[in-house]
């Protein structure tokens, strides 16, 4: 689109700026609110400039929590969320790499059936199978544990499917060259397939980390012990206090903190996988 039409340029910029405002404004309000005192947001007029209570708010929410909302210190919830998100992301990638490897590179009976079984589970998100899954997890005694938080969410077809598609694009001749070089299946997987999948792994890690981090319904069901609460749950609990006014400054401070890890992951990994994408050109 190498056109020089000032009016069109202006229009497209306006649309883009409007889009940015729609997305960024709530985030801005959240950041502002987290720097204000507890009553500033109840006065009817939403303040748009930072207030003086930043350090105080963050210190309190991180290390002592808001006792009136029954919320433990956010630092603990952040750790829980981090453990859960990492376990889900890493677990999913590890399992789907291996199952995609099996489906693409080995001829075994019922291979197609195995693939389709995995594929069909794509149609069943967590919410649909949540009751039976809860029953299984409860019977296994995994309630209120990191295993209970992460293992049921590790099983999913999306990543397997993506890796399968990627493995299918790896030239057969590369596999054959490895065979001629004397590499067995595991050496081929480790020395060739895994390094080639680096960029896909990075991209999936970003997506799955955020997926794990943002889980709400599942942690709500399987945890009753505040020691295993995740941060996304925590926000909801604090905003929904009974017989009291929510402390919006605290809620917003939690929101800002909850946003940080995904942002960090995106920023760090993006550089890595964009580089990978550019390198794999040609």
């Amino acid at each position, binding site marked *: 689109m190498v056109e020089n039409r000032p009016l069109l340029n202006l229009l497209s910029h306006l649309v883009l700026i409007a889009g940015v405002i729609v997305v960024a404004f709530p985030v801005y309000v959240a950041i502002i609110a987290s720097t204000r005192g507890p009553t500033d947001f109840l006065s009817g007029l939403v303040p748009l400039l930072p207030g003086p209570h930043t350090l105080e708010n963050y210190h309190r929410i991180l290390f002592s929590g808001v006792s009136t909302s029954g919320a433990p210190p956010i630092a603990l919830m952040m750790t829980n969320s981090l453990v859960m998100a990492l376990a889900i992301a890493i677990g999913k990638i590890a399992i789907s790499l291996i199952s995609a490897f099996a489906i693409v590179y080995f001829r075994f009976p019922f291979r197609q059936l195995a693939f389709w079984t995995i594929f069909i589970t794509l149609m069943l998100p967590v919410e649909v199978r949540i009751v039976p899954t809860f029953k299984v997890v409860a019977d296994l005694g995994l309630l209120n544990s990191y295993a209970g938080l992460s293992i049921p969410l590790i099983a999913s077809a999306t990543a397997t499917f993506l890796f399968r598609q990627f493995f299918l694009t790896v*030239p057969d*001749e*590369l596999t*054959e*060259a*490895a*065979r*001629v*070089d*004397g*590499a067995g299946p595991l*050496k081929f997987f480790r*020395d*060739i397939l895994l*390094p*080639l999948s*680096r960029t896909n792994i990075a991209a999936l890690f970003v997506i799955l980390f955020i997926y794990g981090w943002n889980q709400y319904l599942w942690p709500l069901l399987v945890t009753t012990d505040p020691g295993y609460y995740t941060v996304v749950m925590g926000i909801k609990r604090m905003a929904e206090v009974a017989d009291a006014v929510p402390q919006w400054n605290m809620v917003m401070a939690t929101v800002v903190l909850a946003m940080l890890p995904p942002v960090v992951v995106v920023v760090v990994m993006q550089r890595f996988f964009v580089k990978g994408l550019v*390198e*794999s*050109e*040609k």
Partner: protein
Amino acid sequence: MSAIAIRGVRKSYGKTEVIHGVDIDIADGEFIVIVGPSGCGKSTLLRMVAGLETITEGTIEIGGRVVNRLEPGERDIAMVFQNYALYPHMSVYDNMAYGLKIAGLSKADIRARVDKAATMLQLQPFLERKPRQLSGGQRQRVAMGRALVRDPAAFLLDEPLSNLDAKLRVQMRLEIKQLQQSVGTTALYVTHDQVEAMTLADRLVVMHDGVAEQIDTPMAVYARPATTFVAGFIGSPAMNMLSVEAAGSRGLTLANGRTVKPRDIRLPEKGRKAILGVRPEHLTPVSGANADLELDVAAVETLGADTLAHGRLAGAANGSGELVARLPGSTQVQPGDRLPLAIEPGMVHLFDAETGARLEELDLPARPARTAKPLAEALNA
């Protein structure tokens, strides 16, 4: 030692047989080129030797050892692929060293071997680069180097030059030949390019529809093609084929009713239908009275050194009697001309009209032997 023996090898995919029993004996250090049009089974045959395809029937021996059931890595072969199949995430050095690492060689040993191969292939400055940072020719060299470092019993090359541009192809062709001669390793080379086949091969295997139609030296394949397919495939432009009927001592009757009497070849019995083959380069323009054939020129291609006159046999019906003559570059010829041509003595090939097989019983002993002897006698006298 590291000879390859292919015995009665067949390959079927389900019920479709694609290779119908091929026998080739390859001597140690020999450069064999398998040539044929696409879909003739030449790559499949090579891949069976490599162990990348199963062998439906027959046996393949490498160095006296039947390898039918061995993995490619255990066959002591190295393969060069058409698209080189370099590992994109490894440096040139690692690409060459990978097979050796798996074989469990010591670091120092690997370094020594890779350095030696890199020096031979002038890859020293590029050892730390990734394949994508190399040009096509350099990648080709790395693929060769990967084969070379393993010091295998045989090199298997699957159209290794077809991804290069024309100039580089000629250069690499020469390099491959020299390399193979200097290391003396048996090589099996698959190509569809007849020039590559002719220039590289110690012996050629011409394949067609899953059958090895002729296995011989390039010159023998050129001079005495075993079938009409081989005759048409080797040589450019392709050999002219005219259907003829034997007319006893008068010679052979052409489709246009005229007779031609080729020299230095026996004639088939009267009434036998045959195919007369003559290469464009063996037709010479002569004055009208001495002509064996007349060519109605339809198109002229000037190549500089040569001029190709395309057309058809004078008087032949439409759709038959296509004829090409390769004339000296200085020849003045225009479309519409009628060109009287003579067939050089001994340059006629006769094939069975039904099977396309060469009528070998009609061939006289090769010409040089006959002319050389009287000359020697004359000198001695």
